[in-house]
């Protein structure tokens, strides 16, 4: 068992235990006991697992960019046994004090124990930072020195080089903040607010100009309708409408009507109602004025009398036609009395003829019977007169002859006469019917005429008018009424003119003045909107000022950050300078340019780092190191700076973990590096990890191995096979 070195002031690494972690599938414990340490072996045997385990156990995470887009669990669990729980333990000691830090992957449990006191969780994290005096970023910067960060110092791109140095000097926080603190955004925001206000003000003014032009146009049109400037406002509108109302009322009174004045009209939204009231008033005058009232009965009378007059003419004509019809009958047929007498005669004649026909008929029948008898009986005596008939007297044919002559002559004659008489009688009857009808018609016409005459008498106000005077009376009355109507008509025409004139005035108000006041109202509303907008503009202006003030403050913060960066970086470089210079001399061994100067130089918006080498510090010989040193020399120079910074950093860890420091170095440089490390390890605990066997030999030569615990990682089958040699 090795005895830990006593230091008493700061913490040294005692051991790192790795369980199922990355390249260690099982468990491995790497003891250092406060001594220098060397981990060597080929690539892929698990050396970097130890460094990762150290960092992960202490801090639980890695700097940005170490594990991009990789889940920790998958990365940290053993390569050969995926899914197994991983954990780690780091033991540090400071004098007699022992600090045990343990972390469990799956449960995320983190514990810190110093002596018999333990902490866990966030409390443990805080305690760790307080005890060790550094956070993860500082640990990675000042305790674990990795090749990747050394290489970054040699990049061609000055921005990338500066970033690498920022990380090394712990100025990456400042850079992060400088990246996000952008005063220009706020200045642009202020400009945007002001532009908004200007645009809105411009829009407002444009609209105001448009409204003013429209108002001027409306006013011009109103002036054409004889309105004056003093009318072009709500007071003018009210006054004009009040005048109109008064004039309408006066017009009403002039024409015998009394109605209330128009409602007041001081706003354009009242115009509709006032206009309707006006039209109503106008209509009232038109329809109900005294003139109209007087005219109405006259026209009614005229209509009545005209109807009477026309009716009288018609009836007269009808009566006269009826008379004429009777006269025509008389002239054709004689007086009715005569026709009546004629009818009576005809009736008598018809009676005679009927009797004669009857007698003739009876005789014929007798003869027919006699003939039938004769034909049947062949009598010897005449059946008619019963006289004996002469011998061989053929009675039948004689009867036949007699019968036929009676039928064909007498009866026929009688029939003829009877037909004629009947015809004449029918004619007479017809004539008489016409007479009767004519009389009835005439009677009706006369009565109708009489009634009409009565109406005419009533209509004309007379007592009685002779038939032959009715037309004239009616005409006379009509003429008188027509005269009255004409007279009233003139008055009504004048009234219509008055109404037309006042209607035109109202229309002029509606079409001329109201649009002006409406446009004025629109302009007034626009001005009110402008007042509201002003308040909003003031608010926006306030925002612009706030953004400007913020921009100025952020600018001040940026400047303070840059100044702070320059100050802190310069301070770190100044502290690290002497040691870096010493190591530069030992590692680079330049025959001429033996002095290294690293400076943080402020520029307008950043801090530049300059690596300058010179001969004995003379400014005349000073050159940019990148231009005069080889890659190997530059690597050595970077390492010198690294060590210088690490050694000058103030924290409670007394060890450095150096990972693969000899990449890119030639043999003399490796030898010099081995000597430097050996020397450094006399002042503090150094743990070196390397696959460079030349370097391992140089370390032995430099005496490093004598005091160091050597872990040789010989093989790897999921877990490294480690051969450990500790000093006695």
């Amino acid at each position, binding site marked *: 068992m090795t005895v830990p070195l006593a230091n008493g002031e700061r913490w040294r690494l005692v051991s790192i235990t790795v369980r199922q972690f990355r390249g260690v599938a099982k468990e491995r414990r790497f003891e250092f006991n406060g001594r220098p340490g060397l981990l060597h072996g080929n690539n892929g045997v698990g050396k970097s697992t130890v460094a990762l385990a150290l960092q992960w156990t202490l801090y639980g995470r890695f700097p940005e960019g170490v594990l991009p887009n990789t889940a920790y669990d998958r990365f940290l669990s053993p390569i050969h046994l995926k899914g197994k729980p991983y954990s780690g333990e780091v033991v540090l000691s400071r004098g007699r004090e022992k600090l045990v830090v343990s972390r469990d992957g799956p449960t995320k449990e983190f514990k810190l124990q110093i002596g018999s006191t333990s902490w866990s969780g966030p409390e443990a994290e805080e305690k760790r930072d307080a005890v060790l005096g550094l956070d993860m970023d500082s640990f990675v910067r000042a305790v674990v020195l990795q090749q990747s960060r050394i290489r970054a110092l040699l990049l061609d791109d000055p921005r990338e080089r500066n970033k690498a140095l920022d990380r090394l000097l712990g100025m990456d926080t400042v850079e992060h*903040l400088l990246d996000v603190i952008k005063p220009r955004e706020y200045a642009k*925001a202020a400009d*945007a607010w002001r532009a908004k206000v200007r645009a809105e003000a411009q829009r407002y003014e444009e609209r105001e100009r448009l409204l003013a032009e429209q108002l001027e146009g409306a006013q011009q049109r109103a002036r054409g309708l004889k309105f004056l400037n003093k009318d072009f406002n709500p007071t003018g509108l009210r006054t004009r409408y009040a005048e109109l109302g008064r004039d309408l009322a006066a017009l009403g009174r002039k024409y015998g009507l009394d109605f209330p004045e128009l409602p007041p009209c001081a706003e354009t939204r009242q115009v509709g109602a006032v206009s309707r009231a006006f039209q109503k008033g106008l209509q009232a005058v038109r329809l109900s004025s005294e003139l109209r009232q007087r005219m109405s009965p006259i026209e009614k009378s005229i209509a009545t009398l005209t109807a009477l007059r026309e009716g009288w003419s018609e009836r007269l004509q009808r009566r006269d036609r009826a008379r004429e019809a009777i006269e025509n009958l008389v002239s054709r047929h004689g007086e009715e009395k005569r026709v009546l007498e004629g009818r009576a005669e005809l009736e008598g004649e018809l009676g005679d003829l009927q009797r004669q026909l009857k007698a003739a008929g009876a005789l014929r029948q007798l003869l027919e019977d006699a003939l039938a008898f004769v034909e049947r009986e062949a009598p010897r005596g005449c059946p008619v007169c019963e006289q004996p008939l002469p011998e061989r007297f053929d009675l039948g044919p004689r009867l036949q002859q007699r019968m036929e002559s009676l039928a064909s002559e007498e009866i026929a004659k009688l029939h003829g006469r009877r037909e004629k008489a009947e015809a004449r009688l029918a004619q007479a009857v017809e004539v008489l019917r016409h007479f009767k009808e004519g009389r009835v018609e005439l009677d009706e016409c006369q009565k109708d005429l009489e009634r009409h005459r009565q109406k005419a008498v009533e209509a004309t106000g007379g007592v009685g008018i002779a038939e032959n005077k009715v037309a004239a009376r009616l005409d006379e009355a009509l003429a008188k009424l027509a005269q009255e109507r004409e007279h009233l008509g003139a008055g009504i025409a004048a009234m219509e003119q008055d109404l037309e004139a006042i209607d035109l005035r109202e229309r002029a108000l509606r079409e001329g003045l109201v649009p002006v006041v409406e446009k004025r109202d629109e302009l007034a509303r626009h001005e009110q909107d402008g007042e509201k907008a002003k308040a909003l503009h003031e608010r926006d202006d306030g925002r612009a000022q706030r953004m400007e003030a913020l921009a100025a403050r*952020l600018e*001040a913060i940026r400047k303070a950050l840059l100044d702070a*960066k320059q*100050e802190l970086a310069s301070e770190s470089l100044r502290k690290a300078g002497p040691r870096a210079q010493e190591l530069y001399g030992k590692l680079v061994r330049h025959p001429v340019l033996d002095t290294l100067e690293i400076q943080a130089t402020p520029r307008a918006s950043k801090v530049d780092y300059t690596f300058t080498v010179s001969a004995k510090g003379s400014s005349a010989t000073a050159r940019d190191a990148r231009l005069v040193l080889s890659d190997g020399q530059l690597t050595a120079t970077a390492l010198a700076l690294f060590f210088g910074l690490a050694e000058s950093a103030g924290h409670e860890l007394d060890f450095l973990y150096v990972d693969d420091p000899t990449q890119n170095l030639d043999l003399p440089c490796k030898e010099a590096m081995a000597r430097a490390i050996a020397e450094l390890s006399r002042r503090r605990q150094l743990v070196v990890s390397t696959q460079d066997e030349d370097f391992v030999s140089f370390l032995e030569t430099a005496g490093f191995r004598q005091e160091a615990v050597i872990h040789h990682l010989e093989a790897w089958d999921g877990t490294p096979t480690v051969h450990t040699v500790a000093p006695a």
Partner: protein
Amino acid sequence: MKPIDSTVTAKLQAQRGQAEALAIWQMIWAAYEREGVEGTEAYLAGLLELPGEGDHEDVEGRP
């Protein structure tokens, strides 16, 4: 307080009229310590006011 914070604070305190800048710096730093760069960005974004972001108030009856 980290050296960055204290150094920047001291520089702002040393200047006249930067009390408000100092207050903002303290908020920036607190956000950075809590949530890193994202926290700081979020804080600074919260300070930025641009027109058109929920700014519509009725002036002409129009948004």
